[in-house]
């Protein structure tokens, strides 16, 4: 097991180093530069050049990368070229907001997905099942940004019940959390349902029934617990998707989380912010996938010897 974790961990580290170089180079060879976000469009070329020189952007990219690594080794993560705020400062504020939104969405995904999926499986081929399945198919078909607009239109513009965006009151969290959770909840319903149905066909279920256990104990006690395995093993993947969807949802609701910050930094070519937070999100995703694999390896010995 130790060797397996080490091998996967090493591969993850290599990927992260390659990703950091790619992001660093990619951002700098892309069209545009940070002066566009700070200086007026009519600024003289000399002013622009002086500004670039002050930021160290006139050096060759590999020299810049070396300086970046040297600063990194001294614990200096850099700061925004546009607002001047330091990276740890940004991480504290935006990171906390992302965490709040992500946790709220995750809670909704499983609080809605697991019970509804189990219910649909227990009442297979009844009106209840069809209604739940229908809702989950719709949930996967409606893109989250479109769902966001519909909910903003209904709850903010028409009914005035909830704000259309902003941060960080609980009332402002409701719509983004629901939108971020929608697709995941729909997928979880379908996975729980099919996983339950698969379990319900197993021999042990017949044994439990034959020995006289109440049907509700069989379904919600025994079967449900076994049906959870594939769902848990895909939780790492879900986290990755949540990070991706958060880019869109946070931008729509102007929820100042990491996704919002990253999209904004990329559009304004704020290199230090863009590269740090791209790498942070990539790391979160890659490590989540790694943990999921390792957890799966612990649960199923066949995997780690493959």
């Amino acid at each position: 097991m130790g060797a397996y974790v080490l091998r996967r961990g090493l591969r993850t580290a290599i990927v992260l180093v390659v990703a950091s170089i790619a992001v660093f180079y990619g951002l700098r060879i892309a069209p545009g530069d940070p002066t566009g976000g700070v200086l007026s469009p009519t600024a003289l070329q000399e002013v622009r050049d002086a500004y670039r020189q002050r930021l160290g952007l006139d050096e060759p990219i590999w020299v810049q990368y070396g300086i970046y690594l040297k600063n990194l080794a001294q614990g200096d993560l850099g700061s925004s070229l546009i607002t001047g705020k330091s990276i740890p400062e940004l991480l504290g504020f935006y990171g906390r907001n992302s965490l709040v939104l992500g946790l709220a969405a995750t809670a909704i995904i499983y609080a809605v997905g697991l019970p509804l999926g189990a219910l649909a499986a227990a009442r297979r081929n009844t009106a209840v099942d069809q209604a739940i399945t229908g809702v989950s198919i719709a949930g996967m078909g409606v893109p989250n940004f479109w769902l966001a607009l519909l909910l903003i239109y209904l709850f903010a513009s028409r009914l005035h019940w909830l704000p259309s965006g902003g941060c960080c009151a609980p009332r402002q969290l409701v719509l983004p959390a629901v939108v971020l959770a929608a697709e995941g909840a729909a997928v979880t319903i379908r996975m729980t349902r099919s996983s339950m149905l698969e379990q319900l066909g197993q021999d042990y279920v017949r044994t439990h029934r034959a020995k006289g256990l109440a049907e509700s104990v069989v379904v919600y006690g025994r079967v449900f617990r076994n049906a959870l395995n594939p769902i848990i093993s895909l939780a790492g993947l879900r986290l990755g998707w949540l990070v991706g969807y958060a880019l869109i949802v946070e931008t729509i609701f102007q929820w100042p989380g990491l996704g919002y910050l990253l999209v904004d930094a990329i559009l304004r070519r704020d290199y230090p912010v863009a590269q740090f937070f791209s790498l942070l999100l990539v790391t979160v995703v890659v490590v989540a996938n790694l943990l999921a694999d390792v957890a799966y390896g612990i649960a199923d010995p066949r995997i780690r010897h493959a």
Partner: protein
Amino acid sequence: MAIASSEAPALPGSLPARRAIDAGPLATAWRRLARNRLALLGSLVAVAYILLGILGPIFAPYDYAKQSLLQANLPPLSEGHLLGTDQVGRDLYSRLVTGIRISLIVGFGITAISMVVGTAAGAIAGYRRGWTDTVISAIVEFTWGFPLILLAVLFAGTLGPGLTATILAVGLINWAGFARVVRGEVLGLREAEFVEAARASGLNEPRILFRHVLPNVLAPALVMASYYVALGIIVEAGLSFIGMGAQPPLPSLGVMIAEGRNYMLQSHWVTTVPGVAIVAVVLGLNLLGDGLRDVLDPRLK
């Protein structure tokens, strides 16, 4: 995403099995698909979408970027504007069909290419095993499962926002999905008796792989393709919506929705028209995928 079992009620046991076998597997599959009304509806929507995307822009009544302030905010079914106009008087039908063409290119086009690449890579990895498999699997392992939207935003950061970034991200992630599934199937198939028989009768390896093994992985690959097309369409629209994909005035469906969002109270159709188009095709493709899986998966027969 495609993780669920059969949604269709069990077929009545009266399948005319003999005739079905005589008619060949494709005809059988088609007959079973035609019986699944939801899947049929899904494939009709998909076909309509493809036709609109290919032919629509050719026969569009207006230039998608032509503004006409005197004709602004006309509701659908106005004279000369079937679906109405937007806030600067551009014809929504002409914009819609161009938007559909863009999502067709990203959704169907890129998925088709990545299906070919991924299937080939997965088949070779699964069939050859050894170091080929190790290398391909290592790449697939990291690519698959990486969030498409995050990758697309990173590409947008390095290439500048635009459709190229979206297309690259969709292609790079999706081929790995196909490769992963096909490799798994081929690993099992290469030990199958009919493959052994083919080998014993002296056929060369490429011929065995392409003529005997690959046709058997087509089914799972096709099922996956229908979900991936839907995913590609959603991702393209979403990225364009937040300004990371297609750039105005190019009317990607996401761009259209973004441009209309500030006018939802006055002229909701500017966002409703492209929104309904996306929802319809994505739902249609998901239903088609569910139906295809029920029809093509031999384990359900």
